Structures are given as structure tokens and as C-alpha cells.
């Protein structure tokens, strides 16, 4: 402690700015980690809370994927002796366009029996929560809302609320106001309860329910009850506790969680290099102190511990600040994530309260400290090995020894060979990720040597710009690779990340555009919801013929998309008249032939998978696919695999006849409309709106609307990527600031001498600027090179473990070109402060330095 106070504290105080800049890497890494995970956690907790609050006394819930199931199942369940009470449920998320922004969750239940499971009247023996239960049941426009929702929107008993229904906008009447607590706090209080049979009409569900909530007889264990129900209902139904229902939602948001991990790990990784760099410099600068300490009897262990404690403290402060910043940004992220999940998966969830997990915060602190410790390990070890005699001599210590260079070169060759070898072997995740890691390590090992070599290459160019300043700047880099290599490595990693993500983004947009031009070719789309991904409302079967009868319509195809469980993953079934669909759009096949797969699928003799589903589930052409349905398993061979980017979890195309037979669901949620040649899109769109204006709720989208929507969703998705890019570039730029600050401090005497022999302030200034530009150029060259490798691994990772989508490798040259001015500009900006400090310091002090 004494050493820490006498030595470390004094040094830190003297180099306050650098300490802060070094810490920023950790701050950002931890902040992004805490922010994204807290946001994810908050949305998950909100979902679980909603599920639990809505569940009430429910012990088990029966579902059969998104299509739901026929009403008859309810009687079957109610007749099981082990079941005490079983009630039907329909859930939908709608936007009633009231003062409270966003959607409300409509919980539709059978009020005659539901009070056995859910407590609507929360004051014992008090006034009934529904003004008149018989009127509530008799009138399909009855709604019960929470007290909070009523208050926020100025609603009272008998107030009117307008809601979209399958029969167009309808006015609903508030016939009950639930008192606060329990159920009413689900979905942030934005909850409305209505009669389940009325909901069937409102949402076009036919005679189907989404779910059955049930409680078991006294003395019957949940496991016993579940097994009995599973045995009676068959594998097409999922019988789960309410808590287990969250798993599907978790699965949907897991992609986001993975993204959060990647972003923060990259930020921390880059931060690690900045810390490494700072400590390596600190060790060099403090050689004299170390020498004195060693001469006074300090052991190697004590010196090493001193530096490690310093780094741990730095890591701790950085982590604490990171945690605080992370919690601050989490709220906004949670809101964004809630909207994002709603848009992409149609699963609405609001996270109005932030859920901070103390374990996550503790882990983040530990992660920050550990990162800092790892980063400082090598500098601390070199500090411990300092020879006291040499240390007390003046001189330059920024060069790398020949021995160090040799070791690094050998390591670089070994890791590069390993990376190539593992990439060629391919196969399991060990080889893949091992290969990726080896490639990165090889690049890091080669960085100091490559930085010096590139600096030599740059020397003529910079001399051309400014003969003296250019040479001085480059020489500073060449002579001090230890000082620069950490920053260059950080910049290289950041830029490699930018290039790989940029390439991935471009490949995704290109692939999406190709897919849209083939698969999304109808002129118009008819949807019962304002959002094409929302599946709360369904069209009746007869709508296709009604659409076909409209003047100007050449043909119309009804499509039903439903999410079902396949090997515990929520995949998407796309069902339509395959013969009709394939007549208009055939998606590019990656396995199987068009002329074979579509007729077979149309005849109900096979299914066509999306490429990403096949990749994620390791399914191959010709294999048998088995999907559980409420009416027994559906076993069909895979007759084709096509490029389809409709869903991140993958799609399976099944002919409508097969689907209806197994799921007993004849509804649609989108109608694809092709117009006759010469027909005007605007006129037909208007005709459609007029045709259904009085009887059915419809939204008509043009082809452009849908394409814009897909691009918007993709933009939203890549919005997360842009956060990654911003963090990566920011941390790297901070690295440049740090390095230059150190460089200036390190060369104070040298710069002082230059000024003393007549160098102008502007020349000193320009030397620092050019040094920054040189670092930027070297980092750019290495980063763009490593980016090419990283892009390969990103595309592979996307195909293997992320979304299963195989995207084409295209180096993002435009992005690389864009990065050139950005990084050079940032480097210049980063150099302004250090350059000014270099010219404004006292000349006498500078000459006395060291």
C-alpha cells in the first residue's frame, strides 16, 4: 500500500489525462456490456412478469404454436379428472391509438370460469370489478381495463375506445376497471381484458383458441398433470408451466444477447490493447523508479504486484464508471429492443422498468478488472524483470529487442499456419473458432514488425508532404515500436471489425435485394394488420376469391405464416397454395431442382426449407422432416432448399392443404396480389380498400411499401451493428489520443531540443499531426487487411451459428474508402490536444526532462 501511494499514485496524478483515456476503453466496453445486457434482461424480465401476472393461479398452459387449436380441445382438457379448472385464452397486441403510446395487450378469456385462475377483483369482498358481468358477456364490445390505463387515458365505466377489428374499426365500451396490483401490472398496466368468444371475431380467429390455462386438482403435482395432459393431447401440443413459456421469447431475443456480447467483447478487447499500451509505456517511463526500488531491495514479485494492483484499480474505476454509464443507456436500449422484437417477431413487449441484475453488474466489474489485469500482465512482468543497473542509465527503451522480434515472428508464422490449417480442416466449432482466434493472434504478433515496415514505406510519402516534420514523425514511430504497436493493434482490430461488419451488412443488403426481387414480386399485399409481421389478426379463407374478383387483379394468393416449435426453436411455417405461388415466384435453390421441388411440395409430398433453417438445424435435401401438429405429427421429406430471408430462425414452406389438415386453420395473414398488365396500382389499391372498407379490416401495401419495410427492419437490425462500429472506432481513436499524449511526454526533451535549435512551433505541431496520420495510415493498412480475413469468418459465423444465412463474400471497398478520411480525420483531431501540449510546454522544463 505504501508503494502504491508513494509510487503509483504520484505517477497517476502526474498523468491524469492519460489515465482517464486508458480507462475509457474499459468504461466503454463495460458500459456497452451492461447497457445491452440490462436492456435485454429488462425486456425478458418484463415478459416473464407479464406472463406470471397474467398466469395468476395457472399451473400449466397448453399451446400448439402460433396457429392455436380448435375449441374442442378445451372440452377434452376440462374432462380430464386431474384438471380442476381449464380456461381458453386468446392474446393479442393492438394499438388503440389512445393517449398512452404504443400497444396494449388484449387478454381474452372466458369470464364465466376465468375468475378461478385470475383475480380480477383485488379487494376482498368489495365491489365487483365488472359493472355488470352479464352485460359484459352479452355485449361483444365489452372491455375491462386497468385502473392505471383508465386514468392515463381518461377512461371511466361506459367510456368508448376505438379498436381495429377484422370487421374494420369498432367502438368498444369500458365495462370494467381492474383495481391495481397483480394482473393489472402486466404489460406495464397497458392491459385490456375481453371475452374470448368476442375476441375470436375481433381478431378473425375462427373457432380457435391460442392457449388453455389450467389449474390441477388439489394433490396433483405439476409433473404428474403435465405428463397426463401430454399423453392425452399428443406431441402436437406443448404443456408447460407459465415460467417455461418465457423460453421461446428468450430464444427470439438470444440473437440480440449474442450481439451484445460480441459488441462488448470487442470493445473490451480493443480497450485491453490500450491498457497494454499505456502500461507498456508506463513501465518504460518508470524504469528509473523501478531501478531505484529494485536497488533498495524490492523483489521482482513486489514490482509485478505493484503494476498489477495499479491495473486492477484502473480496471475497477473504469468498470464502475462503465456500469454506471451502462445503466444510464440501458433504458433507451430496452425501449429500442422492445420495439425491435415487436417489429421483427410480432411479439410485443414493453420494458417500462429497468431490471438491473446484481450478478450481471458484479460480473461486469470483474470482467473490467480482469481485462485490465490481463492487459497489464506482460508490462508488469517486464517491469519485474528490469535490471536495476540498466534501469538507472539514461537511454531509449522503446525499441524491441532482436530476441523479442524473433519470438514474435515465429509465433506469427505458427499461428498463421494454424489458422490456415484449421480453416482447411473446417468442421466443428473448435476448428472454426480456433482458426479465427489463431488468425487474430497471428495478426497481433506480426503488428509491431508490420508497423515498423509500413512506417518505412510511409517515410518517403510523408517526407514529400513535409520533409523535416514528416521524417521526424515517421522516425518517432520506427524508433518506438513498443509505444505505437499497441495503438496500431487496437486500431487494426477496430477497423477489421468495421470492415467485417460492413462487409456483412453489405452482403446482407445485397442478398435481401436479390431475394426481394424474386420472392417479393407481387404488386400489392393485403394485410389485416398495419404491420406486416403482426399476426394478431387473420383473414377468413374466402377473402382470396373476393380479392380475385376485383377489377384489375390478375391473381391473388393467400399466405399464412405461423411460428411453431421445431427442436425447441421457434421456426416459421409459410403455408400457401404452392402451385400458385411457384407460378409467380421461385426462390433460388441451394439444393434440389425447381422443376422437382415445387410440384412435390404442391402435391403435399414434401416441404421446401429456407437455406438458413437447413443450416441452423443441419437438415439436408431428402431427409425426413417431422413437425408436431395438434392433429398428429407431419412427416414429409425435404424436397428443396431455397434462399429465403423471411425469418431469422428459418422457414418451411408447406402446401395449404397439408397445413389445413394438420392444423385445422384456414385463415390467412397476408394476400399477395398480382395485377393485370396495364392495371393501375393506385386504382386497384383504392378498389381493394373500398371493397373491404365496410366488412373487413384491411391494409393494402404496395410492393415498394413492403420493400421499404424490409429495409427498415434490416436497418433496425443493423442499427445494433452501427453501435458496434461506433464503439470500435471511438475506442481506437482514444487509443491514438493516448499514444500521442504518451509520445509527446516521452519526447518532451527531444521536442524541447528541436525548439531550442530553432524549430518553429508550427513545425512541432505538424510533426505531431503527421505522426498521428502515420499511425492512422499504418492502422488502416493493417486493419483493412485483417478485415478481409475477419469478413470471411463473420460470414461463416453468420451461416453456421447466427442466422444460418449464407451470404456472398464481397469486400466492402466503399466502406474502406469511407474509412480513410474518417480515420485520418479522427487521427488529426486526436492529435490536436497533444500537439498543442507539445508546443505550449516550458522549454526549460522540457530540456530538463529525464
Amino acid at each position: 500500500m505504501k508503494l502504491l501511494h508513494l509510487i503509483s499514485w504520484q505517477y497517476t496524478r502526474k498523468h491524469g489525462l492519460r489515465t482517464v483515456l486508458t480507462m475509457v476503453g474499459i468504461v466503454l466496453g463495460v458500459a456497452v456490456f451492461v447497457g445491452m445486457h440490462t436492456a435485454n434482461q429488462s425486456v425478458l424480465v418484463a415478459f416473464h412478469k407479464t406472463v406470471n401476472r397474467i398466469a395468476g393461479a395457472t399451473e400449466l398452459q397448453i399451446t400448439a404454436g402460433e396457429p392455436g387449436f380448435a375449441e374442442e380441445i378445451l372440452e377434452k382438457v376440462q374432462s380430464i379428472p386431474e384438471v380442476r379448472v381449464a380456461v381458453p385464452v386468446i392474446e393479442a397486441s393492438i394499438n388503440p391509438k389512445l393517449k398512452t403510446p404504443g400497444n396494449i395487450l388484449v387478454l381474452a378469456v372466458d369470464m364465466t370460469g376465468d375468475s378461478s385462475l385470475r383475480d380480477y377483483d383485488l379487494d376482498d369482498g368489495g365491489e365487483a370489478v365488472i359493472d355488470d358481468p352479464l352485460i359484459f358477456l352479452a355485449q361483444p364490445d365489452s372491455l375491462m381495463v386497468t385502473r392505471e390505463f383508465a386514468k392515463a387515458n381518461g377512461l371511466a365505466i361506459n367510456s368508448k375506445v376505438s379498436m381495429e377489428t377484422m370487421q374494420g374499426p369498432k367502438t368498444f365500451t369500458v365495462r370494467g376497471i381492474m383495481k391495481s396490483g397483480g394482473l393489472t401490472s402486466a404489460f406495464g398496466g397497458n392491459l385490456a381484458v375481453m371475452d374470448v368468444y368476442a375476441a375470436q371475431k375481433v381478431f378473425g380467429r375462427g373457432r380457435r383458441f391460442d392457449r388453455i390455462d389450467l389449474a390441477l386438482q388439489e394433490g396433483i403435482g405439476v409433473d404428474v398433470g403435465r405428463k397426463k395432459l401430454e399423453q392425452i393431447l399428443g406431441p402436437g401440443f406443448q404443456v408447460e408451466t407459465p415460467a417455461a413459456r418465457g423460453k421461446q421469447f428468450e430464444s427470439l431475443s438470444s440473437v440480440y444477447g449474442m450481439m451484445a456480447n460480441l459488441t462488448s467483447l470487442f470493445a473490451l478487447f480493443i480497450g485491453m490493447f490500450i491498457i497494454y499500451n499505456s502500461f507498456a509505456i508506463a513501465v518504460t517511463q518508470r524504469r528509473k523508479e523501478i531501478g531505484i526500488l529494485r536497488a533498495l531491495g524490492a523483489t521482482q514479485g513486489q514490482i509485478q504486484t505493484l503494476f498489477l494492483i495499479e491495473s486492477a484499480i484502473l480496471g475497477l474505476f473504469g468498470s464502475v464508471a462503465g456500469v454506471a454509464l451502462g445503466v444510464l443507456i440501458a433504458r433507451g436500449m430496452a425501449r429500442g429492443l422492445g420495439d425491435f422484437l415487436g417489429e421483427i417477431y410480432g411479439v410485443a413487449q414493453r420494458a417500462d422498468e429497468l431490471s438491473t441484475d446484481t450478478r450481471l453488474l458484479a460480473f461486469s466489474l470483474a470482467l473490467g478488472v480482469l481485462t485490465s489485469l490481463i492487459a497489464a500482465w506482460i508490462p508488469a512482468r517486464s517491469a519485474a524483470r528490469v535490471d536495476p543497473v540498466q534501469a538507472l542509465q539514461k537511454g531509449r527503451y522503446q525499441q524491441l529487442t532482436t530476441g523479442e522480434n524473433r519470438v514474435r515472428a515465429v509465433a506469427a508464422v505458427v499461428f498463421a499456419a494454424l489458422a490456415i490449417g484449421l480453416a482447411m480442416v473446417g468442421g466443428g466449432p473448435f476448428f472454426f473458432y480456433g482458426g479465427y482466434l489463431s488468425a487474430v493472434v497471428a495478426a497481433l504478433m506480426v503488428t509491431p514488425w508490420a508497423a515498423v515496415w509500413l512506417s518505412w514505406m510511409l517515410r518517403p510519402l510523408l517526407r514529400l508532404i513535409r520533409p523535416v516534420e514528416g521524417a521526424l514523425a515517421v522516425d518517432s514511430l520506427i524508433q518506438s515500436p513498443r509505444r505505437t504497436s499497441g495503438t496500431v493493434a487496437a486500431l487494426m482490430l477496430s477497423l477489421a471489425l468495421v470492415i467485417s461488419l460492413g462487409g456483412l451488412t453489405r452482403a446482407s443488403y445485397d442478398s435481401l435485394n436479390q431475394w426481394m426481387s424474386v420472392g417479393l414480386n407481387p404488386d400489392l399485399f393485403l394485410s389485416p394488420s398495419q404491420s406486416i409481421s403482426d399476426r394478431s389478426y387473420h383473414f377468413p379463407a374466402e377473402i382470396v376469391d373476393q380479392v380475385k374478383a376485383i377489377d384489375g387483379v390478375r391473381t391473388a394468393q393467400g399466405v399464412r405464416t405461423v411460428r411453431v416449435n421445431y427442436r425447441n426453436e421457434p421456426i416459421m411455417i409459410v403455408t400457401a397454395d404452392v402451385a400458385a405461388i411457384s407460378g409467380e415466384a421461385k426462390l433460388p435453390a441451394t439444393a434440389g431442382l425447381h422443376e422437382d421441388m415445387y410440384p412435390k411440395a404442391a402435391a403435399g409430398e414434401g416441404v421446401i426449407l429456407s437455406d438458413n433453417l437447413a443450416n441452423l438445424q443441419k437438415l439436408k435435401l431428402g431427409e425426413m422432416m417431422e413437425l408436431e401438429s395438434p392433429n398428429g405429427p407431419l412427416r414429409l421429406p425435404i424436397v428443396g432448399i431455397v434462399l429465403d430471408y423471411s425469418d431469422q430462425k428459418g422457414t418451411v414452406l408447406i402446401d395449404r392443404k397439408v397445413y389445413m389438415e394438420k392444423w385445422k386453420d384456414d385463415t390467412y395473414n397476408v394476400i399477395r396480389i398480382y395485377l393485370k398488365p396495364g392495371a393501375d396500382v393506385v386504382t386497384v389499391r383504392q378498389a381493394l380498400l373500398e371493397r373491404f372498407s365496410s366488412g373487413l379490416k384491411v391494409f393494402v401495401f404496395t410492393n415498394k411499401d413492403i420493400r421499404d419495410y424490409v429495409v427498415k427492419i434490416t436497418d433496425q437490425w443493423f442499427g445494433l451493428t452501427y453501435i458496434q462500429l461506433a464503439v470500435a472506432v471511438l475506442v481506437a481513436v482514444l487509443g491514438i489520443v493516448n499514444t500521442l499524449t504518451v509520445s509527446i511526454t516521452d519526447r518532451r526533451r527531444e521536442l524541447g531540443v528541436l525548439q531550442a535549435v530553432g524549430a518553429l512551433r508550427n513545425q512541432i505541431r505538424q510533426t505531431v499531426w503527421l505522426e498521428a496520420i502515420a499511425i492512422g495510415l499504418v492502422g488502416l493498412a493493417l486493419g483493412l487487411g485483417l478485415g478481409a480475413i475477419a469478413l470471411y469468418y463473420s460470414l461463416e459465423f453468420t451461416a453456421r451459428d447466427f442466422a444460418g444465412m449464407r451470404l456472398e463474400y464481397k469486400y466492402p471497398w466503399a466502406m474502406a474508402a469511407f474509412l480513410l478520411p474518417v480515420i485520418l480525420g479522427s487521427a488529426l483531431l486526436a492529435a490536436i490536444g497533444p500537439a498543442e501540449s507539445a508546443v505550449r510546454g516550458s522549454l526549460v522544463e522540457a530540456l530538463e526532462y529525464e
Partner: protein
Amino acid sequence: MNRVLLVVSSAACLFGMDLRGADARQIVEESQKRQQSQSQRYEGVLEVTQATGKKSSKRWTYERNGAFGESKSLLRFVAPAEVKGVALLIVNHPDRASDQWMWTPELARDRRIALQDRSTRFFGTDFSFEDLEERDLNQNDYTLLGEEAMEGKPCWKIESKPKQTKSSQYAKVVTWIRQDIYVAVKMEMYAKNELVRRLEYRKIEKMQNIWTPLELEMADLKKKSKTILKTEKLEYNTTLKPDRFTLDALRRGE
């Protein structure tokens, strides 16, 4: 017999026969026999008074076809306008719980009232769906607790408990039966050991030779609310078409 029958005839036909000194079961059996009729029709007014004092009122018509134990009943609301046409079809069985369906004309569809829902309140009144059922007296055990005068009239005090094979929300029901005319005048329903509901029969008159209470008051002692059912235009053994008591007829709104 633990069942409290909402319909007037049911209340009357619970008990009968001059069986002073006989055992409780015999009293109940004879009571049923005396109150039997082949059909019944009346118009009823339901008045619900909530704990806060707020009142609501509804009118219905009630028809029953068939004798006790195997009867079919149809209850159709006629006022207020919001509930007009809402109907409940009850098909009673001698050996098991009745089947019940509700019809809501605005939705144009019927829904089955599940057996498990029978303990819930009947559309916001203080009666439960279970209270509307007719059930076989063999499904209960009866004990004569003694004699007690009610409003100056000597009564038997009989306790009925459901047999193990039968499910009921009530652990026991205590009934007071007038010894002179063999009609129940009061019932107290217990859930576990707690008194939860009290039913009082009033305005007992002889209608077509059957002693019939024309007013019933059911009090929910937990919610502190009460429901009064008044009957008008009561007729026994009237001609009713059997096909009126089917699910199809319910759907047609007949």
C-alpha cells in the same frame, strides 16, 4: 340434497310428505315427490344489490320440461336491452351434473358452461351455476339436526353433505323445512366450515296445488351482496314443446 335450486319449483319440490319423526332422507324424498310437476313456466325479476348499495335489475322467462331429475330448462333474459336474448339451456341428469350452454345473440354463438365453472357466480348474481342444478338426492347424506321454528312455524333442520363421489363447492347445506307444508324456508351453505351463502324463501303460496315460494333472496355473505328473485305468471304442467329445449333451438333464439 344439497342443491339450492334457483327456480321456484325446485325449491318447492325439495321436500314434502308428512313424515314427522322419520329420517331426514325420507323427508327430502317425500318433499320432492309432492312438488313434482311435468313442466313449469314463469317470468322472473332479478334484483342484485351490491355491497355498495348499487342495484341492478333484469327480467327473464323460465321454462322447464320434464320431471325432476331428468328435466330440461331454458332461461332467457328479456330485459334490459343489453342482455335481451341471452339464454341458458340446462339439461339435468339424475346421476351426474347437468350440461349447461349459454347463448349470446350479439355474438350469435353458444358456449358450454364447464362443470368446473359451476361454482362461479351466475352472471353477476349471488347464485352460482351449481345452484341452478337439479341433482339426485342419492348423492348426498342427510342428517336431521333437530327442530326449530321459523317465523313461528315449526321446521325440520336438516343437514346435507355431498358424498365423496360428488364434487360440490359446498361442504354442507343446512335446510329449514316447514313441517306443515314441507317446503324449505331457509338454506345456509357452507364452504369448508364457513357460512358463505344464505337463501331465504318468501311469499309461499299454493299454486295449482303446489306450495311455491314466489320470492327468493340469496345473500353472498363474503361479498355482502344479495339477489332477490321474484316470480310472476307462474304455471305448472303447461304444454311445452320438447324441441324448444335443444341446442339448435337455443341457437335459433326460440
